[in-house]
C-alpha cells in the first residue's frame, strides 16, 4: 500500500492544527467544532457507500439514530465510555448488513427511493415507539460534565482513527472491489465477483461509521430523540459529501466543516434568509466544482506543482 507524501503531510498538519485549536476557540465554537468532526464521520459513512461503491443511499439516518439509541441504553458512566461507543458501531453495522441485504436487489433511482422510504419508516417507528425512544422529546443520557476540551480531544482522536482506518480500507483489496463496483457492476461480475455480497459488506461498514457518529453525537449532546432518524439528516450527509468531494476520505469532513461554519456565520448575520443563502451556495459550488472542494484543491495543487517544476 502506498500513500502519497502530500496526503500524509496534509493529514499530520490538520491533526496538529486541530489539536492546537482549543487554545484559540471560545466555548461555543469548540462545541461546534466537536460536532463538525462527528458530522465528518457521519458523512464518511455515506461516502463509503456512495463515493466508493456507487450507491446513492438516503438511509444513513437509520444507522445514525440506531447508534445514538444503542449508546443511550448502554451508557453506564464516563469511565466505561468505550463500550457503549463500540456497541453503537457494531449494532449499526449488523443493521447495516441487514439493510444492505434488503436493498441491494434494486439499483439506480429505485435504490434511492427504497433507502429514503426506509429512513422515513424508521423515523415514524421512532416517533410511535415512545416507550422505547422517548419520541420527539427523546431520552436524556446522564453523561455528567467531563469538560468541553475532554470531549473535543476524544472526538478528535476517534476521528483520526476513523480517517486512518478508512484510508487503509479504501486502499485495501476490499476497497478496490468497492471502486470496481462503482465504476462498472457488469465488469465486476464478469471478473467473478458477487456484486451483492460486496455491496452488503460496504453497507455494513457504512453502518459501523454512521452508528459510531450517532453514538458520539448522543454522548456530546447528552440525549437522543426520534429526530435523529429524520431523513433530513440523510440529506445532510449527501450534501456534505458531494460538496466536499465524494470518493475521497477528506471530502466529507471538509464538506461538513464548510457547511456547519458557513451556516453558523450566515445565520448570525442574516437571520431568516440563511437557508436560501446556504442553498444557493451549494448549487453554486456543485456547478462550479463538480468534483467538490477536494477536486478543486487537487487541480489547484497540480497547477502549482507544474508551475514550480517549470515545463
Amino acid at each position: 500500500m502506498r500513500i502519497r507524501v502530500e496526503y500524509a503531510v496534509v493529514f499530520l498538519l490538520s491533526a496538529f492544527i486541530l489539536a492546537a485549536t482549543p487554545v484559540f476557540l471560545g466555548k461555543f465554537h469548540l462545541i461546534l467544532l466537536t460536532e463538525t468532526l462527528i458530522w465528518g464521520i457521519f458523512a464518511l459513512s455515506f461516502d463509503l457507500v456512495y463515493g466508493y461503491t456507487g450507491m446513492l443511499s438516503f438511509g444513513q439516518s437509520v444507522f445514525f439514530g440506531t447508534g445514538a439509541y444503542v449508546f443511550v441504553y448502554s451508557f453506564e458512566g464516563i469511565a466505561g465510555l468505550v463500550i457503549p461507543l463500540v456497541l453503537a458501531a457494531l449494532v449499526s453495522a449488523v443493521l447495516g448488513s441487514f439493510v444492505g441485504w434488503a436493498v441491494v436487489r434494486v439499483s439506480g433511482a429505485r435504490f434511492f427511493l427504497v433507502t429514503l422510504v426506509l429512513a422515513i419508516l424508521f423515523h415514524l417507528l421512532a416517533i410511535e415507539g415512545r416507550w422505547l425512544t422517548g419520541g420527539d422529546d427523546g431520552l436524556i443520557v446522564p453523561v455528567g460534565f467531563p469538560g468541553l476540551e475532554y470531549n473535543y480531544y476524544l472526538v478528535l482522536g476517534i476521528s483520526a482513527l476513523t480517517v486512518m482506518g478508512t484510508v487503509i480500507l479504501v486502499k485495501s483489496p476490499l476497497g478496490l472491489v468497492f471502486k470496481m463496483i462503482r465504476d462498472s457492476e457488469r465488469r465486476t461480475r464478469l471478473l467473478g465477483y458477487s456484486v451483492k455480497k460486496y455491496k452488503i459488506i460496504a453497507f455494513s461498514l457504512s453502518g459501523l461509521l454512521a452508528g459510531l457518529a450517532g453514538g458520539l453525537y448522543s454522548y456530546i449532546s447528552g440525549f437522543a430523540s426520534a429526530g435523529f432518524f429524520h431523513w433530513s439528516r440523510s440529506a445532510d450527509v449527501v450534501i456534505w459529501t458531494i460538496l466536499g468531494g465524494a470518493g475521497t476520505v477528506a471530502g466529507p469532513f471538509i464538506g461538513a466543516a464548510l457547511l456547519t461554519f458557513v451556516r453558523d456565520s450566515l445565520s448570525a448575520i442574516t437571520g431568516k434568509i440563511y437557508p436560501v443563502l446556504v442553498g444557493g451556495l451549494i448549487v453554486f459550488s456543485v456547478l462550479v466544482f463538480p468534483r467538490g472542494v477536494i477536486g478543486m484543491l487537487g487541480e489547484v495543487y497540480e497547477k502549482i506543482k507544474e508551475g514550480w517544476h517549470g515545463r
Partner: protein
Amino acid sequence: MGDSLLSVKGLSKEYDGFEALRKVDFSLESGETKGVMGPNGAGKSTFLKLISGEIDVTSGLIKFDGRKITNYSVERRCRQGIAYVPQKPSPFPTLTVKDNLRGGARAGSYLPVPGREVKLDSTLDLVGLSDRSEVVASELPYGEKRLLDLAMSLVTRPRVLLADEPTAGVDNRSAGRITDLMIELTKSDTPAARGVEGLIFVEHDRNVLFEVADEVGFLKAGKLLVEGSPEKIKERKCVKEYLSEHGAFLGYSRGDQRAGID
C-alpha cells in the same frame, strides 16, 4: 460430444418475443480456437453472453468440463474458468491500468492471491502495457483499452476465453498485438497461454478471423448456418454471399499492416 471442453445444445434466446438465437448446437474442444462471424444483429454477442452467463437462456443446455452450467451465475462461471471480454471496451474508468488488472487477478475474492504481482507484471508485458501501469484507464486510447480488457480477463485464469470483436475499431498496432495474442493463447507451451484451453471469438475482419480460427461458424438471424475450417467455409454459398456483400474487409487487416506502417 460428452468430452468436449464446452458444448451447447439447442441454445435459444428470446428478447421480448424476438428470437435472437435459435436452437444453436456448438462445441469447443480443448486446444481449439473457434471464430464466429455474421452480419450485424445476427446474435453473435447474444451467443457469447449466454455462454458467459451474463444473460439467461430461454431454452437449451450449456455444458462445461462435463458439468451442466446453464443455471450458474456469471460470477460463478468466471470462477469456474469462463471469461467474457465484452464488445464495448470495459475497463474500470477511474482505476489505473494496474488496479484494473489487480481486480481481475483476484477473480471474485478480495483476498490477495500469492504471487499475483509477478503475474500482473508479466501480463502487462504480454499486452504491451508495462509502461502504462499507472495511467487511469479512461485516458487510454481505444486500442489499449481493448488490450487491457483482454488482460483483465486473462488474469482471472480462464480455461475458456470468449472475446467479442476484440479488434473492432482498434488501431493497427494494437490489433496486431491482439491477433498475435489470440493465436498464441491456446498453444499451451507459450507464456501467453497460462492454462487457456479454448477460445471463442467474434470477428468482423475476415483476415483476422481466418488467420486465428481453427474453425469458423457463420451465424445469421440467430441461426448457426454452417461451421467448418476456414478453407471449407469460404466455399459455402451463404458465406460467399455474405463476404462479397461486405466488401474487402472491415477494420484492421494484417496484410494492410505489412504493406503499410511497419
